[in-house]
């Protein structure tokens, strides 16, 4: 079974926010709700990097663990979704999430938040697939049409990758080898380049 993942390549992201725009447009996300955002570190300084962040669809999702009404579920594709009819807007998922993915339409006093909204990996929600209810509550269901999330599809530098974890990691591994540097180059450098050799990857491999 496929296991869906996002990966954002910090070496490629140019902070164009096209993923954010694509997400907002595709899913009719209201103002104030950021299912996806781009975070920039060392803005304007040497070593500036940007990353596009959304729900990472964790295997053991903290949000699901703390939800007092148990409204989260994981699909067969490994996408973490939630049921807005069950959500009571307590905000616990937001506190538990390492990535700040859960969003709320309101942020008033006396804990008025409204129902939680987050990235669905463009996989809709528990409503009937492609129904108007699903569109209204959760946005687009591209996965059911055999398409990947629009943020990744739209990414002009292909920094943001989405899809089956095996494929994504292969693509990224290939990039790492070509680039010659990444957090993974521990393995590349010190295990005698075994990763490169065994996968028979092409590109600017050091000879």
């Amino acid at each position, binding site marked *: 079974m496929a296991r869906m993942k996002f990966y954002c390549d910090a070496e490629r992201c140019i902070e164009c926010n096209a993923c954010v725009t694509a997400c907002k447009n595709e899913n009719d996300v209201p103002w104030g709700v950021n299912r996806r955002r781009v975070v920039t570190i060392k803005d304007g300084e040497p070593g500036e990097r940007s990353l596009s962040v959304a729900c990472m669809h964790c295997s053991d999702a903290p949000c699901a663990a703390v939800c007092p009404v148990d409204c989260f579920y994981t699909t067969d594709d490994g996408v973490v979704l939630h049921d807005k009819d069950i959500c*009571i807007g307590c905000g616990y998922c937001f506190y538990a999430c390492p990535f700040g993915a859960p969003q709320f339409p309101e942020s008033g006093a006396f804990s008025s938040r409204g129902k939680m909204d987050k990235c669905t990996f463009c996989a809709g929600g528990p409503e009937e697939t492609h129904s108007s209810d699903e569109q209204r509550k959760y946005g687009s269901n591209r996965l059911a049409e055999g398409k990947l999330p629009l943020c990744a599809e739209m990414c002009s530098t292909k920094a943001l990758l989405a899809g089956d974890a095996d494929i994504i990691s292969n693509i990224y591994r290939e990039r790492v080898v070509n680039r010659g540097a990444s957090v993974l180059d521990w393995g590349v450098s010190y295990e005698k380049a075994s990763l490169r050799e065994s996968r028979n990857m092409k590109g600017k491999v*050091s000879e």
Partner: protein
Amino acid sequence: MNVAVRHGLIQILVVIACLLLFAGSPVHAQSSQDDKAPVSPIDVPNPGAELWNAVRERGGAEPTQQHPLTAIWEDVLQQQDTAAKSQARSADATSMINASGDQWRQLRREQLIPYGGALLLLSLAIVIGLSFVKRTAHYSESDMIIRRFKVPSLVGHWLMAGSMLFLAFTGLVLLFGRFTLLPLTGSDFFSAFASASKEGHDLFGPIFTFALIIFFFQFVSKNMLHYRDFVWMARLGGLFEKKPLKAGFFNFGEKTLFWLVIFFGIALSVSGFAILFQNLLPGRDLMLLATLVHAVSAILLICLVIGHIFMALSTKGTMDAITTGDVDANWAKADHSVWYEQMKEAGHIRKRIAHASDDAGKEIPVAEVSAEQTGAS
């Protein structure tokens, strides 16, 4: 030290730190500073990396031996959110990763809910067990009564008790409902029920705080410690003695309860307001702390209140004090002898009216009663 060796060392550290971080381990902070890496680096030339570093250093920037990603991960691991920027304006938008949320989740799921639930069940079990122990009445009824609480005090007590019970019930639904009620009722019902609990809890919280403040000022003067209380404490409240010990208006046990209720009530109010107005809080960590403080003090307070309710119901004559405001003179003599003597001297002991509702008009002149009972308001 060789440049490449240092480079490799740093990278190993970063990878270990990342792995630890993703494993949700709270020790990542120490390990990232650990100088002894488990794997000794092998010097393999890596032209790609050298080229990349050269590109990075171009343009007059400070030459750095550090891998560019190292700097990013250091920022991320040290939670230097101020360094990050985002177009998004939502809460915590500039935070890339937050390990404390996962620690909070583990505390909540692995400690708070099981141990908190066990503690509550244990106090219930103790109370139920004790209720089977037959207690003989410690006084015989007389036809004389003493006014113990005036009406404002009764209102203050029950306003706090009522809001506290409502908050306890709705709060327990939110903390334990998923594991106890949800499997029984199903999602649809439980969701509406939990939503009602959440909204009711949010709305009644400040009423509890209001009641707590009123209650504090109504009862604080009677709960100041007295040397008598230390005697009471030393002799364990006369638990193993035949005759009840000397006590004033409140005995040491009651005073302890008062101060604990005030203490936990303040903790609950402060953390509760932090949760209610979390949109004004500076950070998420404070919020997590507030929920933990709130839950822990709530559980402890509920345990105390279970004991308090048991004591009130199981001790003969005690409920009269807080329902009608009057107590039997012999009850006072037995349990609060010092107070009884004071009341006797002041001439506050009066005759009980047997059937108050039958001939109320004749027996209790309205003006007298209201002057006496509401005078302190």
